[in-house]
């Protein structure tokens, strides 16, 4: 897979509600970076969101490598431990 085939996702985790929004930019890394900087600026004053730009072959990969932004991840560790 070449670098140009990677897909870009702007992930916004709402710290108050615990909900995650994902905006997909396909393979357009430049547009994704512009949106990233804009989202950070808009959020700079009150920091209600945790915004991050993540990229991979698919959203499914990101849900695995950066599971903390998605629901259900906290249970995953518990499942590996004795109960």
């Amino acid at each position, binding site marked *: 897979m*070449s670098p140009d085939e*990677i897909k870009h996702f702007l992930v916004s985790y709402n710290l108050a509600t615990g909900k995650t929004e994902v905006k997909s930019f396909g393979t357009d890394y430049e547009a994704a970076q512009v949106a990233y900087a804009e989202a950070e600026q808009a959020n700079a004053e009150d920091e209600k969101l945790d915004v991050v730009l993540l*990229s991979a072959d698919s959203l499914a990969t990101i849900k*695995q490598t950066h599971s*903390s932004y998605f629901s259900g*991840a906290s249970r995953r560790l518990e499942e590996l431990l*004795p109960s």
Partner: protein
Amino acid sequence: MSFSKTQVNRAGQLWAEHLRAAADGGRRVGQQRVELIEAIQVIDWWREEHSKPLSRVAANLRYYAGHESKPIVAQRLKKLPTILGKLVRTPGMKLARMEDIGGVRAVLSSQDAAYRVASRLRKNWTITRFRDYVAEPKADGYRALHLINRNHGRLIEVQLRTRLQDTWANSVEIDARRVAPGLKFGTGPEVLRDFYAVSGEFLAIADQGLAADPALYRRLMELREPVDTLRRRARQRKENK
């Protein structure tokens, strides 16, 4: 638009000083506002400078990790608040030398697989630093292999984790966000820090394919309830806000 490393460092320093002063209660935002906005543009530009090297490193890592199994690889450009936070916490740190503005992570099937990928990378890439947090875990219990690769003049951090290490680290992120912001920096409730130290060790033993240590097992059982209580209280505080 292009800036020198001196300008990049100065922009980082300006923000670090501003945020340290703000934390001490001495806001002097008015006078500096224009300089601060310009500095953010420089920092943004510097981060963007990492995007192409980052994508190249990620593509290359997919190839080297692909020898093991279907590679699970993702990349991220560091969040601006996290970049600034690191500059504030680390006096003397120069932004142009920050090693993890571009970061790529691979999740591998076993500890042996992670070590094999690391040795392939060290053989084939320009690695400026190798940190073995498996042999020497961080104080909080974090385990992984970290390599810094220089690619077209930019430093990119590579994290190699097993599935267990990755699940553990993501769980820390969640509790840092919901329960104790200082968790990743060695503060926060002792019970929670204990839980992560012990569970990190417990999983490391599993990653080595060894049988569970009964003492660690007992300690985890003891910590379960107090940790649940902490999380429940944090949830309730949020709901009552």
